[in-house]
């Protein structure tokens, strides 16, 4: 339990590491990388322990209840209704007072001993505010009975929430903005993913960027990157999420632009940051809407509970989820805001691995998963067949895969592959397959990190080129370890049985609920299934193409490539093995006739998926053998066709198709130009804002506003000069002078009035006339 209440140590440790590296890194023997590696290693260890604690937590609390989360939950709405009416009184035992208004006011069980105990010494808690009272005793003790009934016993996840007051707002602090940690299966599993990928990337980097210009800064920002992501993952309030979200963004900015001497790199960094800023607009607005919708609360728990229990109007939820989808689109590289992701390859390769597997892009998925009730209710995911989230995801999954076909740069292939895979995850979330999305995130993190690091390994060998078409080839024999790990990861990505990708992707496909004989899905998303299958086929095909270019044929580059050192290959091996086996963590309950024992199946689901008031009642699609075979066949076809084309020289009609067929040519041009989105954003939108629009504003400033001001100013100065020349100098000064010199000079004053310039007289005359006449006219009227 101690580990669950003190998870703040993880981001704090990484942040400390950042500061230490920045301050002392350069003076250390290994230029600061040792601090980073040690810190992240400790983090990894802590995350493992935390995961263990969480496992104990959910099992010990519900040892008497069965984990029958699977299909039982989906059996009917009656269960859900009953569930809503009688919330488990103990569900929020582990939520500290003041962290969630709903929990404070509503059915709160006894204050657990741990919670009281944990408010011990650390400064975070000394700040803690404890408004609201424990309305203990109001909770009905009937929940236990209902659990016993029918053997349903749906276990309720007890999130461990700790928080401290960040700042007060409003009358007598009517709103308290809190900062803290919200620990449940979802965040614990993300802690694990982030820290393991980060650890391997750190180790890998010590070799990969060895001797770099800014080695120390590189590690400092890796630390900060990890810290930000951990901070984001552990967020207890939405405002904290925003902070983590943006910090992740700025770290990726710094790392993508790591080699900022060259303009393309800094351009890519800027593009990444600005695109994300566009999405952040949606984030800020969405969070604002949610804050007011949840009756002025930033607490994720509050928002989720209120959204899940229908206390927020559907319209507001829809609005908020649409705004947040914009944020997700930018952060997770979803279609039409994905353009920054491939460009982000300008950063060092380990950073790409980190961005694509565990941090930056995953943040968007995590955001949706975290606030899932908002999306689930807002988009009416259950029982529907189309919604924005699913459309965005499926489109991305399909079109991203197409784009990967025409890339020459191996990293860009992988980048578009990430875009496409993120599309899978988003679709999964969009169709209600929450667990499938999380599971795919998990498996994808492993094999995609492996692929990126493998690409880095190849480029390390081939003179820092990533151009697989021109500079690679035949690396199979030269770099066997890289080759085999790459092959395994590719197989996982393509969804080859029994590698991890197969299991997670199959779960997503089943989750669309569209395939014949599908059971237990939330809705029937036919279009999504079709697009995902096309995406899956594409994935297998472009990865096979990449493998051909990288590892087979003749070496096309120059110099003598060589296998990379152990600090590079060991992370590869670790990741490849993980990528191969993690799929078994979430085995279905039964595959046809074979049913797995309880301790084997759906372990991941039990670990990760929350059950309770703060999570919608989602159901889980069951494993479907025909679908699994179908998807396997699709992947096999995806491998087979390129195999015939490249290895065997077959499929002759397809060769140079784009030179013969106009339609194919157009298609290829569109793909090479990335659907013209870059052109639209850079040249049209940015160009317009930075060029004509900004210039127009500036022109307006200089020629209209300033001209008015200057005109008025000049008029005033002239009037002033006139007054000065004719009245002040002549009359007033004159009066003073005249009075001072002699009183006998009668008419002296008048004499000075005469400047002798007729026209001044005329002007004075007319002005005076006009004024007098004006006075009379007005007075007379």
């Amino acid at each position, binding site marked *: 339990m101690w580990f669950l209440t003190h998870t703040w140590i993880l981001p704090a440790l990484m942040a400390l590491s950042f500061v230490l590296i920045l301050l002392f890194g350069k003076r250390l023997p290994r230029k600061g990388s040792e601090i980073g590696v040690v810190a992240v290693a400790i983090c990894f260890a802590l995350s493992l322990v935390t995961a263990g604690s969480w496992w104990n937590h959910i099992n010990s609390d519900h040892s008497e209840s069965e984990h029958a989360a699977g299909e039982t939950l989906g059996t009917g709405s009656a269960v859900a209704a009953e569930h809503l009416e009688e919330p488990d009184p103990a569900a929020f035992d582990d939520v500290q007072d003041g962290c969630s208004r709903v929990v404070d006011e509503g059915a709160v069980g006894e204050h657990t001993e741990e919670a009281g105990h944990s408010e011990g010494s650390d400064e975070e808690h000394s700040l803690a505010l404890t408004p609201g009272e424990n309305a203990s005793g109001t909770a009905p003790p009937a929940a236990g009975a209902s659990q016993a009934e029918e053997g349903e016993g749906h276990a309720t996840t007890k999130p461990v929430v700790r928080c401290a*007051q*960040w*700042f*007060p*707002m*409003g*009358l*007598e*602090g009517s709103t308290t903005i809190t900062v803290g940690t919200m620990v449940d299966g979802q965040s614990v599993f993300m802690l694990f993913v982030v820290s393991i990928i980060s650890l391997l990337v750190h180790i890998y980097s010590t070799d990969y960027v060895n001797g770099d210009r800014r080695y120390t800064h590189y590690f400092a920002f890796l630390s900060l990157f990890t810290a930000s992501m951990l901070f984001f993952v552990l967020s207890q309030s939405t*405002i904290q999420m*925003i*902070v*983590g*979200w*943006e*910090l992740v963004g*700025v770290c990726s*900015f710094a790392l993508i*632009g790591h080699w*900022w*001497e*060259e*303009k393309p790199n*800094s*351009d890519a960094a*800027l593009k990444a*940051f*600005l695109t994300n*800023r*566009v999405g*952040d*607009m949606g984030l*800020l*607005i969405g969070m*604002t*809407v949610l*804050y*007011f919708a949840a009756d002025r609360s930033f607490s994720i728990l509050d928002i989720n509970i209120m959204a899940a229990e229908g206390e927020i109007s559907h319209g507001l939820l829809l609005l908020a989820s649409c705004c947040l989808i914009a944020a997700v689109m930018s952060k997770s590289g979803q279609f039409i805001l994905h353009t920054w992701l491939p460009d982000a390859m300008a950063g060092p390769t380990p950073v790409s691995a980190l961005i694509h597997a565990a941090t930056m892009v995953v943040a968007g998925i995590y955001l949706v998963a975290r606030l899932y009730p908002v999306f689930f209710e807002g988009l009416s995911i259950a029982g529907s067949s189309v919604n924005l989230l699913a459309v965005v995801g499926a489109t991305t999954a399909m079109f991203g895969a197409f784009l990967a076909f025409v890339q020459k740069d191996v990293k860009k292939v992988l980048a578009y592959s990430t875009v496409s895979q993120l599309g899978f995850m988003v679709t999964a979330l969009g169709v209600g397959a929450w667990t499938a999305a999380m599971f795919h995130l998990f498996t994808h993190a492993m094999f995609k990190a492996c692929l990126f690091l493998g690409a880095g390994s190849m480029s390390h060998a081939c003179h820092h080129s990533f151009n697989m078409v021109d500079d690679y080839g035949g690396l199979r024999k030269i770099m066997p370890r890289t080759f085999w790990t790459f092959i395994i990861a590719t197989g996982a990505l393509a969804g080859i049985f029994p590698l991890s990708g197969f299991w997670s992707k199959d779960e997503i496909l089943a989750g669309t609920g569209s395939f014949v004989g599908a059971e237990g899905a939330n809705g029937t998303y036919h279009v999504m299934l079709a697009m995902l299958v096309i995406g899956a086929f594409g994935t297998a095909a472009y990865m096979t193409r990449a493998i051909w270019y990288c590892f087979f044929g003749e070496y096309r580059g120059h110099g003598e490539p060589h296998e990379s050192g152990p600090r590079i290959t060991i992370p590869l091996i670790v990741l490849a093995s993980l990528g191969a086996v993690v799929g078994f963590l979430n085995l279905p309950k039964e595959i046809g006739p074979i049913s797995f024992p309880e301790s084997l199946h759906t372990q991941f689901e039990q670990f990760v998926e929350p059950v309770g008031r703060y999570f919608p009642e989602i159901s889980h699609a069951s494993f479907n053998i025909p679908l699994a075979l179908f998807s396997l066949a699709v992947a096999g076809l995806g491998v087979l066709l390129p195999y015939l084309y490249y290895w065997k020289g077959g499929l002759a009609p397809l060769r140079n198709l784009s030179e013969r067929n106009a339609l194919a040519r157009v298609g290829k041009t569109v793909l090479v130009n990335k659907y013209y989105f870059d052109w639209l954003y850079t040249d049209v939108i*940015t160009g317009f*804002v*930075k060029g004509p*629009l*900004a*210039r*127009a*504003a*500036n022109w307006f*400033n200089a020629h209209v*506003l*300033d001209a008015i*001001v200057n005109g008025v*100013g000049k008029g*005033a100065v002239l009037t002033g000069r006139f007054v000065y020349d004719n009245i002040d100098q002549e009359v007033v000064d004159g009066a003073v002078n005249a009075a001072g010199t002699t009183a006998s000079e009668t008419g002296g004053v008048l004499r000075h009035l005469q400047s002798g310039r007729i026209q001044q007289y005329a002007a004075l005359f007319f002005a005076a006339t006009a004024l007098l006449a004006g006075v009379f006219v007005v007075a007379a009227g």
Partner: protein
Amino acid sequence: MTDFLDNWGLILITFLPLVGALVMMVVPKEAEDTHKALAIVASGAALVITILLLANFDYDDAGTLQFLVDKEWIPLINSGFILGLDGISLPLVAMTALVVPLVAIYSWNHIPEPGNPKAFMALILILETGMIGSFVAQDLILFFVFFEVVLLPMYFMIGVWGGPERKYASIKFFLYTLFGSALMIVAFLSLYFLSAEQTFDMRVLTELGGLDIARTTQILIFGGMFMGFGIKVPMFPFHTWLPDAHTQAPTQGSVILAAVLLKLGTYGFVRIALPFLPEGAQWWAPIIGVLAVIGIIYGALGCLAQSDMKRLIAFSSVAHMGFVMLGIATLTDFGINAAMFGMVAHGLITGMLFFIAGSIKDRYHTLEIKRLGGLLISAPRLGWILGFSSMASLGLPGLAGFWGEFPAILSAYQPAPMLNEALFRTLMVIAALGTVLAAGYLLWLYQRTAFGTPSEEFADDPEITDVSTIEWISWAPMLVLIVVLGFLPSLIFDVTNPAATVVVAAATGS
């Protein structure tokens, strides 16, 4: 000790700098280092006393005035010498007391042409008196006097130590603000004559809350104040003095101008205009909101078109103050708090940016963005600080700028009940767009100045050195504060919140 602070604390921080300036008068002009030291000592002493005041401030009671000084001043018109400190004044006083010594330290080896530290430092000290005085004055006439005291030193600073266009810029600045002041004093006087009790005492006027003043009259009087304060802020379309003044002013002038002077306007809105004239405020709030948002977008677009770094930063001020004004216009606790935070954050961040711009100018002798480049190579630390400040300026969470922007946007979603919700929600969306543009121009600036390799012109220029010790000393506190406030926003919100709720209650009549 506490008694002493209670009675004399505010008087001391207000007038110590002035005393310092007077002492400098008797020191001969040639003793330049003495002058600089005197200025640092005088402003530093004010800072020390300010810190003592902060330590003795009762934070639980931040909504009421503390360390009150109430002396008879001009009994003929019921104007008293009233000074007081509450949650609205406190952050601004603290920031002023901090920024001025830093500027004085920075001046140690950065006296701009044509030299003469005696006059220069004396002006800075007089400025400090005026600024702190404005923030602690609790009497309209007294406030007005201090408000005007600020004007002249700044005029001379720009006009004497400024750039090539200094005459134009200084006169523009002077006339603009004077014009605003004229309308403002008229508003003050009419308030005096029309209010139930004929007094200039802000405490009384807050309590009256526009009682006995007809709605239309309130709107008119508010209009006068709007011009006076709005020009100072500066709000679109009265902002055109700002880019010129900033571009031409010496570094120190720019820093003080950005950090403190602009806040006089927003402070005036929060302290005077809103609580005194609630109905006027409610009528004007949508107008202010719209102008603020125009300012946000317009300032950002203006930035994108600039070729001069200092001018760009000046335009960014217009945008940032737009967020502050948007917060004020919502008449909500969130909005006012955000505005208060925004003022401090903008003061620190933009002040910092102007410091950097000044230092770049010292090294490169130009601020033309397209001639710069590769700052991270020529002067890495300076480049880092610039990057850091840019990030803070574009409202990155975790740094101070964010807490001025996000709550302001948030507050516009649900403005005070009597305001038009649809309008403000539109404004919210547009303001959010402003954050994108802000990122655009700042990163674009950063890319072109810091990234890349230095141009041949400056590649081996021996003058381009990294941050000097003096610069570190004068910058470090601001940099640290930007981070600290970013992670512990409660440092300011704790203080402003009680006072802001008072203002909101007064302005919305709830």
